[in-house]
């Protein structure tokens, strides 16, 4: 039946399948990226805490856009190293309060134009990651982190790794989907420590 409708409307739709080009995530040239940046700046307006500076492409976004999220190592490595150097680690233990970390992991709030800047933001961890087995409503964009601390332990190196990953995921994988929560000021030092605790603390439900 559908075919009949299609053929009747063939003059307008052409062949429905053939006319839809296969879409690939293509690399951009400098000029193309500059053009898109200009269009974005023209067509967006600051609203609430979401100011226009958020459209400025930093070197990380730029490299990912130019290379379709797959920059060659020669491009990615130095940029990752620079991101890593810029991470500000807290002194001493990086394990905060996992109970507060659980709240941050569950909250998808923060940094949006309709929200008050002073309202505490979340990390939205569950949007993408599985963590506690008690929270079945979790996304799958990122890897499962269930039992992460049980497998990896919670020594100083692991603490530093998890803290760094939450602070700036791009230091480890330049075009990671994960936001740079510390680098962008989206989570505070204490909040990141609490998330680290949620992932690593042996008493956290993530590790039960």
């Amino acid at each position, binding site marked *: 039946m559908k075919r009949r409708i299609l053929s009747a409307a063939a003059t307008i739709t052409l062949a429905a399948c053939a006319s839809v080009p296969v879409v690939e995530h293509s690399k951009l040239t400098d000029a193309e990226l500059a053009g898109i940046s200009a269009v974005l700046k023209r067509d967006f307006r600051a609203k609430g805490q979401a100011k226009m500076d958020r459209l400025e492409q930093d070197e990380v976004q730029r490299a990912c856009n130019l290379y379709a999220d797959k920059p060659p190592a020669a491009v990615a490595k130095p940029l990752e190293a620079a991101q890593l150097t810029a991470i500000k680690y807290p002194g001493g233990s990086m394990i905060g309060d996992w109970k507060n970390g659980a709240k941050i992991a569950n*909250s*998808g709030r923060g940094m949006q134009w309709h929200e008050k800047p002073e309202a505490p933001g979340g990390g939205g961890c569950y949007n993408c990651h599985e963590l506690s087995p008690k929270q079945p*409503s979790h996304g799958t964009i990122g890897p499962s982190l269930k039992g992460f601390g049980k497998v990896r332990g919670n020594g100083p190196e692991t603490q530093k790794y998890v803290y760094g990953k939450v602070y700036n995921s791009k230091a480890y994988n330049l075009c990671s989907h994960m936001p740079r929560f510390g680098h962008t000021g989206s989570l505070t030092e204490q909040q990141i420590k609490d998330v680290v605790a949620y992932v690593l603390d042996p008493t956290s439900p993530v590790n039960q």
Partner: protein
Amino acid sequence: MDVERRLVLKGAGVTGTLAFALAAGLLKPERVLAAAWPKDAFDAKSTEDALKSLGASSTVESRDVLIEAPQIAENGAVVPIEVTSNVPGTSSIVVLIEKNPNPLAGRFTFMEGAVPYVKLNVKMGESSHVRVVAEAGGKHYVATREVKVTIGGCGG
């Protein structure tokens, strides 16, 4: 059926009449509605109390009461439920959401050829059993079904 309710809702002109009566202060809305709507049953905090209030405290399970509902509902704001009673002589169907603060969601009375069937959307605060009670010949037949509720979305 109670007579007062029939009077209140009878005839095409009733809306006008009722509106006039309300406007003229002849009737207090609460009084009209109390008569038309089993308040005690709807205010009940448990399924048992709600059913007791409706005179249906003793029920028997029945395969002839059918509940069609999704096992998992993505959003508790709208949970579609379709209910049919194949118990002969069914005169009314009651729908209860056990975990809701007031479990009774509705009672439907069928007459003049109406099939004991209703489809509606209900709100569910959390995963819960949905219980349906059909009344036929003064007896009450029950079926239950579990619906899990998840809440999606990001951005808080």
